[in-house]
């Protein structure tokens, strides 16, 4: 294998694996520090994720959210932009989904409900990203700070809406009315039941197929259309993109709006697919998790799906861990997320000089 393809493998496979392993080892240290046997913890975690049907269902249900937000972050990254606003975009996207559902006649067909829900999520999520994108493109406002601000604004807005506008009269809890039955996305366990397979209940619903569908769409868009080509060119070499006649402002807005739209689909899984009403903080943590997933999956849909499933495992396994062991909460997953972002993101090239020297050294000229 010549040096170039060897370096390719190192970059694509070896380094990411090393980085993830480092993150896991670091987590193990955390376990040790709080007097928990990391091996035992891993066993419980894996059991929680795979050991029983309900667990698997939950794992995949969580993974669905991460696919959406992972795709969102990845699209922005391809354009060279960091979309930290996934939290807010997911939240507002869910608002969009809910509004569409609540405004359509309850007797409409499920197909129209699904399409409407998806459209609502896409549009609202995309719009929530539009203003920061516009400000970056045309006013030079730092998109990282504006999207973080918009995360907070989303929270405030949603609290206001849920408490004052959407809350059912007479109710204490800030949530909307129940969605009409026709809008409920079918649960997988129900579908399976109908064709003869009995599996345990879980929140897993057909949104996972929506997620996979959008993964394919993103793959086609980024690598098989001229807009995706323009986005990648801009992200990799903005000077060459200028040379090619690509207009940077348009790329910023296009990529961020698509990114926001994808994040906005979390509501499909959480709201149309599980909660069946708009609730507070349904989106919590998935936006940031999307960053870790995109970094781990190296911004490619296949990598993202794998990383999202891994995160689903962590989330569900973490819930099991929190259940089994007193004094561990699901926040251990947050710690793992952070370490993954650290080692797969900020420190992604930490090992590179050593590995290249070891496995693909430059031949010294005689």
């Amino acid at each position, binding site marked *: 294998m010549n040096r170039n393809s060897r370096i390719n493998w190192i970059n694509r496979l070896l380094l990411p694996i090393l980085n993830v392993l480092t993150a896991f080892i670091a987590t193990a240290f*955390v376990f040790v520090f709080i007097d928990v046997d990391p091996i035992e913890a891993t066993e419980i975690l894996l059991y929680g994720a795979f050991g029983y049907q309900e667990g698997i269902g939950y794992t995949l249900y969580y993974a669905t959210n991460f696919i959406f937000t992972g795709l969102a972050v990845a699209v922005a990254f391809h354009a060279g932009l960091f979309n930290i606003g996934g939290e807010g975009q997911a939240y507002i996207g869910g608002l969009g989904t809910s509004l569409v559902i609540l405004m359509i006649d309850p007797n409409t067909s499920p197909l129209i409900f699904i399409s409407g829900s998806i459209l609502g999520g896409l549009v609202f999520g995309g719009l929530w990203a539009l203003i920061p994108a516009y400000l970056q493109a045309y006013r030079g406002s730092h998109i990282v700070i504006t999207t973080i601000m918009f995360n907070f*604004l989303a929270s405030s807005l949603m609290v206001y809406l849920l408490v004052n506008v959407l809350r059912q009269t007479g109710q204490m809890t800030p949530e909307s009315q129940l969605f009409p039955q026709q809008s409920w996305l079918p649960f997988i366990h129900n579908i399976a039941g109908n064709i003869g397979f009995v599996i345990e209940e879980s929140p897993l619903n057909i949104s996972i197929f929506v997620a996979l569908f959008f993964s394919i769409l993103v793959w086609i868009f980024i690598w098989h259309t001229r807009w995706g080509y323009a986005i990648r060119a801009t992200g990799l070499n903005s000077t060459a993109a200028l040379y090619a006649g690509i207009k940077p402002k348009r790329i910023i807005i296009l990529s961020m709006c698509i990114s926001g739209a994808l994040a906005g689909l979390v509501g499909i899984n959480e709201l149309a697919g599980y909660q069946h009403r708009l609730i507070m903080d349904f989106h919590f943590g998935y936006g940031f998790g999307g960053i870790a997933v995109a970094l781990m999956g190296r911004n490619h849909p296949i990598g993202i799906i794998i990383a999202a499933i891994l995160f689903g495992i962590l989330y569900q396994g973490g819930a099991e861990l929190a259940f089994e062991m007193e004094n*561990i*909460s699901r926040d251990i997953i947050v*710690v793992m997320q952070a370490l993954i*972002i650290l080692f797969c993101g900020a420190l992604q*090239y930490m090992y590179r000089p050593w590995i290249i020297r070891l496995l693909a050294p430059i031949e010294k000229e005689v």
Partner: protein
Amino acid sequence: MEDLLLTFILTLDAAIRVSTPLILASMAGLFAERSGVVDIGLEGKMLASAFAAASAATILGSPWLGLLAGILVSCALSMLHGFASITHRGDQIVSGVAINILAAGLSIILGLAWFEQGGITPTLTSDERFLSLTLPGVELINNIPLIGTIYREILSGHNIIVYAAFIIVPTVWWIVYRTQFGLRLRAVGENPKAVDTAGLSVNILRYKALLVGGVLCGIAGTYLSVAHNAQFTRDMTAGQGFIALAALIFGKWKPYTVLSACLLFGFLDALAVRLQGVVIPGIGEIPVQLIESTPYLLTVILLAGFIGKAVPPKSVGVPYIKER
């Protein structure tokens, strides 16, 4: 009228208390950004040090040891940020985000393991906290109308960290503009090549800047859990690290202007609390969420360039690569 004035004074009093962590954190951000390093991790450092300080205070029984712990933890995270951003030239935003999330998760996990109270730390006793100090002469001046009230409410009665914050700002100004370190710091943020060709180390200067920032964030975090409140609670920073960044931009990276920005944000926050339930004729009750959003809205508007241009240090966010 009397009532309104008193309310105003009390709001100012609250504003000072609320601004304190913003002031400290934004000064930390100032050092980092002036040296050319973006520090999105102010939030995480504050949170981590809040946890460390509260834990140390309750275990060791002293707020000062708590302060020390807070500072050490914050500095450790700063060095981590430096390791990723300076030494390994990694993406500074990603590094900051990682630190924020790490702090959020780790503070709960450790809190649970050590204190078994669902993530919060035990409530601190009076001995373990920084309490409000009464300035000398309150009794004496109290009877003088207006001035007495101002002295009693606004100037006296804060805890030591608040006073420290207001002393720190002129100190920061002095360091940045009147010392050799400050000159080099500002140079590194504007034109690292100029610093390099002058024979100085760009990286060491940046690490030093991050270290100073670490100390300041540590104080900010300690204030939250050991002075302002009496314990650490989940996510208690609530975005103040980001608001501090916004104040930094709003204040154009200059110490006194940033101080004003922090006080403004603090005042708006205190006002929000006051305005809860107040009804405006014709419009109705102001949604409290709207007032809570004001700092965030202001930031966006500012960044959009509607309130003058915010010009950051020229080489902010760009890792220095010396061509060898």
